[in-house]
């Protein structure tokens, strides 16, 4: 099979529906919160009663502009809402308002990284605004389908790639980067279980080396990265199998069945896809001024890709740490603040990804709900960086600070862990240890250097770790006449 597989190249394009995080809908003032009782968040516009008119949500437009700027796409000065006509009970108007000929964002590039760390740049075709449909519930009523319009009219940004991906793994690397980006920008909550980030994959295969596109199938609404990877892999294999047999794949829409790990045909596209798009007469074109676009540009944060590069190149973090610290905005911002307060970026990275993340995990908390704020953790790490305390004590102090509102200095005082800098007292203790362990001292004098650690260990134990190991070592070497 593998020789046959090598003879074919998969071509994948993705369409992702990103639910924009707004309080109200794209064209109506109904709420968008997830999980409400059926039809409690639908109003006369959402269910398309006669005579109602759509009015556009300004915030959805702003979020689309920010996305377009973040991917370096062109923001259209003039974009148009069209009617995409089809019949289905969850679409009460009989058409979906969407942008067809003139989308708000044209082009753009998403920077992703593969699992092996290599860079993957994915060219976007466009991103356009549209409204979501309602939900059909097929299994709750005998002989009838129930329809809930709570989701109808929720703002979506549909992000479309060129057919430039060639493996299921690359498709997932792109999706993860896009998922990171939309959450980072604060335009989507990214909750895939709730359908806030849904992927359709267009898959075809062609003889390797060909520049023609094969007939594609579209896998709809896959809602986890793992299932996207499996669904695309399944489709690639299915297409290759058909082509190897000399059969032509059919252009169709397919659904992924996770339980069976296979896709099955949903509907043939040849007749259904006649959407008869035309500009919505109720909505004049959306005109955006340079000033409006500039205002959104000012609100753009440093982007994950930029932050990743800065962590690598300026802060000297490892690739692994830089990647982890530039994926989730809240953790990354927290790290930025800790690093600034600590004055040591690498130490801050170790602690934020180590002790701090472990403590969050075991308490099952998000960064935003951490009981230890970034200024206090930064203060603790500043003391560690200046060697005022050592790593072992820092961990004890960290635990105390996690459970209190103490600053690092307060926690150190309260625990009695202040470093002993009384050198006379330390010297007396070193002399006492030498007297207590004459055999070890003799061996050390004869050159068994590993016993140096024995004496330092004893001294640290006696001072509960509050002595400075470097100072102790100097005192012992003094007494050895070194």
């Amino acid at each position, binding site marked *: 099979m593998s020789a046959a597989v090598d003879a074919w190249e998969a071509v994948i394009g993705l369409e992702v529906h990103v639910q924009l995080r707004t309080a109200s809908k794209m064209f109506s003032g109904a709420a968008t919160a997830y999980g409400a009782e059926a039809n409690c968040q639908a109003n006369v516009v959402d269910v398309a009663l006669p005579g109602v008119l759509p009015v556009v949500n300004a915030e959805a437009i702003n979020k689309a502009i920010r996305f377009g700027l973040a991917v370096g796409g062109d923001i259209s000065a003039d974009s148009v809402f069209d009617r995409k006509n089809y019949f289905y*009970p969850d679409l009460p108007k009989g058409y979906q308002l969407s942008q067809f000929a003139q989308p708000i964002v044209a082009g753009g590039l998403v920077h992703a990284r593969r699992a092996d760390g290599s860079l993957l740049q994915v060219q976007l075709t466009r991103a356009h605004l549209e409204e979501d449909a309602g939900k059909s519930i097929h299994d709750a009523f005998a002989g009838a389908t129930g329809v809930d319009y709570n989701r109808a009219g929720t703002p979506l940004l549909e992000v479309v790639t060129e057919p430039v991906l060639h493996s299921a793994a690359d498709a997932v690397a792109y999706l993860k980067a896009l998922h990171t980006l939309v959450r980072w920008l604060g335009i989507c909550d990214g909750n895939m279980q709730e359908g806030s980030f849904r992927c359709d994959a267009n898959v075809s295969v062609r003889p390797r080396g060909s520049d023609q596109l094969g007939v594609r199938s579209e896998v709809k609404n896959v809602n986890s990265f793992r299932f996207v990877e499996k669904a695309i892999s399944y489709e690639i294999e299915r297409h290759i199998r058909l082509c190897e047999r000399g059969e032509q794949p059919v252009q169709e829409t397919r659904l992924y069945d996770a339980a069976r790990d296979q896709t099955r045909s949903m509907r043939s596209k040849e007749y259904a896809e006649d959407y008869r798009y035309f500009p919505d007469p109720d909505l004049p074109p959306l005109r955006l001024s340079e000033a409006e676009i500039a205002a959104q540009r000012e609100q753009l944060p440093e982007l994950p890709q930029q932050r990743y590069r800065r962590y690598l190149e300026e802060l000297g973090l490892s690739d692994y740490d830089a990647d982890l610290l530039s994926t989730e905005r809240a953790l990354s911002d927290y790290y930025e603040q800790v690093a600034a307060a600590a004055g040591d970026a690498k130490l801050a990275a170790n602690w934020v990804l180590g002790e701090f993340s472990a403590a969050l995990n075991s308490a099952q908390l998000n960064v935003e709900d951490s009981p230890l704020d970034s200024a206090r953790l930064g203060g603790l790490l500043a003391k560690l960086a200046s060697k005022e305390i050592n790593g072992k004590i820092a961990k004890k102090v960290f635990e105390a600070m996690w459970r209190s509102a103490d600053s690092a200095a307060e926690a150190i005082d309260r625990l009695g862990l202040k470093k002993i800098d009384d050198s006379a007292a330390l010297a007396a203790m070193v002399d006492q240890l030498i007297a207590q362990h004459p055999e070890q001292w003799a061996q050390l004098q004869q050159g068994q250097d590993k016993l140096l650690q024995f004496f330092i260990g004893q001294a640290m134990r006696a001072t509960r770790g509050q002595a400075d190991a470097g100072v102790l070592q100097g005192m012992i070497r003094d007494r050895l006449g070194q």
Partner: protein
Amino acid sequence: MAINDDDLDKLCFLARLALNEGDRAPLKSDLQRMLGFVDSLRDADVGDCAPMAHPHDSDLRRRVDAVSSGDQCDQLTALAPAASAGMFLVPKVIE
């Protein structure tokens, strides 16, 4: 352009219309006249006009993102031929 029976069948399918046999000929003739009218628009000289998506030169009105309507489930479902448990009921559709 002439409307033939296949065109009419396709339009009826797209519009989900079930025509009586007797309505076919008059509808075909109406559609023919509409297409004739559209054809006549092609004769207009629009050389100086940029293509436009809307006849009025107006800006799209935008609203602030705020929730302005509450729970209207009872009123809305009361308008429906069938409803249950807060849902609109339609003949079973499943793909």
